[in-house]
C-alpha cells in the first residue's frame, strides 16, 4: 500500500523567507515573489523526509505535511 503525502502551504502565514526551498529543493519551489509553491502529486519516500524538514524549518509554521494512509484512514 502506498501512502499519499500532501504538502500544503498556508499562504496567510508564508512570508517568503525561502528556507523551505533551501532545505527541500526537490519538494519546495518559490514563485516569482519568493512565496512557497509545493510539489504537486505523490512524493517519493526521500522527498517526504525533505518535506517534513521543510515544514520544521519554516519560521512561520506555514507548511503542512499530511500523510493519508489508505489502511488506517479511509477517505
Amino acid at each position: 500500500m502506498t501512502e499519499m503525502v500532501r504538502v500544503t502551504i498556508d499562504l496567510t502565514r508564508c512570508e517568503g523567507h525561502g528556507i523551505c526551498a533551501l532545505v527541500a529543493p526537490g519538494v519546495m519551489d518559490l514563485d516569482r515573489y519568493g512565496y512557497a509553491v509545493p510539489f504537486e502529486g505523490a512524493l517519493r519516500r526521500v522527498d517526504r523526509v525533505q518535506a517534513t524538514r521543510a515544514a520544521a524549518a519554516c519560521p512561520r509554521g506555514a507548511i503542512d505535511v499530511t500523510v493519508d494512509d489508505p489502511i488506517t484512514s479511509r477517505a
Partner: protein
Amino acid sequence: MSISLADVNASMVPSTSVVSVGMPGAVLLGGPRHRLDLSEHHRQRGDERFIEPQELLEEIRASGLLGRGGGAFPLATKIDTALECAGPRVLIINLAESEPLSAKDATLVSLRPHLVLDGARAIASILGVPRVSFLVHGGSAPGLRSLELALDERRGEDKDPEWKVVLGDPRYVAGESSAVASKVAGGPSLPLATRVPLAVRGPSGSPTVVTNAETAAHVAMILRLGSSAWRAHGPSSDAGSRLLTLVGSVRRSGEVVELLGAVTIGELLKAHGVSEIPAAVLIGGFGGRWIDGETAWNAEASVAGLGEIGATFGCGLVGVIPRGGCVVGEVARLARYLADESAGQCGPCALGLPAIADDLERVASGRGRPRHVRRLLDLAGEIEGRGACGHPDAAIAMVRSGLRAAGDDLGVHLAGTTCGGMLGALHIDEDPNR
C-alpha cells in the same frame, strides 16, 4: 398593484417573465411597492405553516434550493453537514452583499424583511439553534434600518430565536462566508485559511451555517407554498425564482428584478431597456464571468443555461456594456478594483493582482503589446489556486473571460491605440463603500 398569497398560489402555472418590485407573480418581491411591516406581511403572505423541522428539511431538499449568495451550494446539503457534526451549532444570515453594485439583498430586506426573518427562524428550527446572527456590510449598510425595525416589530414573537446583528467591515472580501463567520465569532472580517468546511467546524469551533438573505427568504416561501409549487416559479431545469441586480447600460442601473420561469438573457435585457445586442455582459459579480454580447443574449437565464456559456449567477449581478463601450477598459477597471480589495493576507494575491491590473491598464490605454497579455496570463496561472480564499481565483477568471469576450476590441488595443469606446458603464466609482 398588490398581490396576496392566493395570487401567488393561483400563479402556480410557471410564468415566464421578469418582474420588477411590486409586480404580480413575483414570489419574493410581489405585493405593494413599499416595505411590509409585520402585520402587513402577515396579511399579504398568510400564516406560515408550522411543520416539524425534519419535514421542513425534506421540503427544502425536495425544492432543490441553491444558495443565492454566490456559491450556489444546495442549502439542504449544507444543513445536513452541520447536523451530522456535534453541536452546538451556529447560524448566520449573510446580509453583507459586499459585491459592489449588487443591491438585491438590500432591496429584499428593505422591502420584505419579515420574509428573511421567517426563513431564518425556520432554518434555526432545523439546526436547533437558539440564536441567529445577521452580518451586515458596516453601520451604513442599506437595509440595516429596515432589519432593525423588523426585529423591533417582532419583539415578543414567542417562536422567534434570539436575533443578533453584527456589523462587518465595509469591504469586498468581508462578505465571503468564512470572513462572515470569523467576524460573528469575534475575529477579524477576513477570510480564513482553513480548508475545513464551515458547516463542519467554523471559527468558533462549532458547525457553522452561513447562508444568504435571499436564500432564507426562499425558505420562508417554500414553507408557505410547499416545495413543488415554489419550484414551479423557476425554469424547468432550475429551482424557484431569483433576484438579480441589473447594472450598466440598462434602463435603470441598479434595478433589482425577480426572474421567473425561463427567459433568455436577451429577453431579460430587452424588458429593461436594452434594445440591441451589447458588446459584452458581466454575469455573477466582479468575480463573475464576461460573456460576449451575442452569446449572452441567446443564453437561457437559468443555472443550466448559464452553465452552457461558462457562467454562473453568482451574486445575481448582470452588467451590460453597450456596443461602443470599451470592454478591455472595463476589465482593467474591475481588475484594479479587485486588486485594491485583496485582503493582503496571501502574498501571491496581494502582489500578483496589482501586477495583472498594471498590465491590463497598459493594454487598455493602448501602450500594451501581446507580450503584456502573455505576461499577465502567465502570472495569473501562477497565482491561481493559491489563495486562502477564492478572491484571486475569481479575479483571474474574470480577467481571462474578459479578454476572451473583448474579441476584436483586444486586437485594436494591442495595435498601439485605443478603441475610443466609452468607459464607465459599470459605475464602479459610485460604489458607496469606496
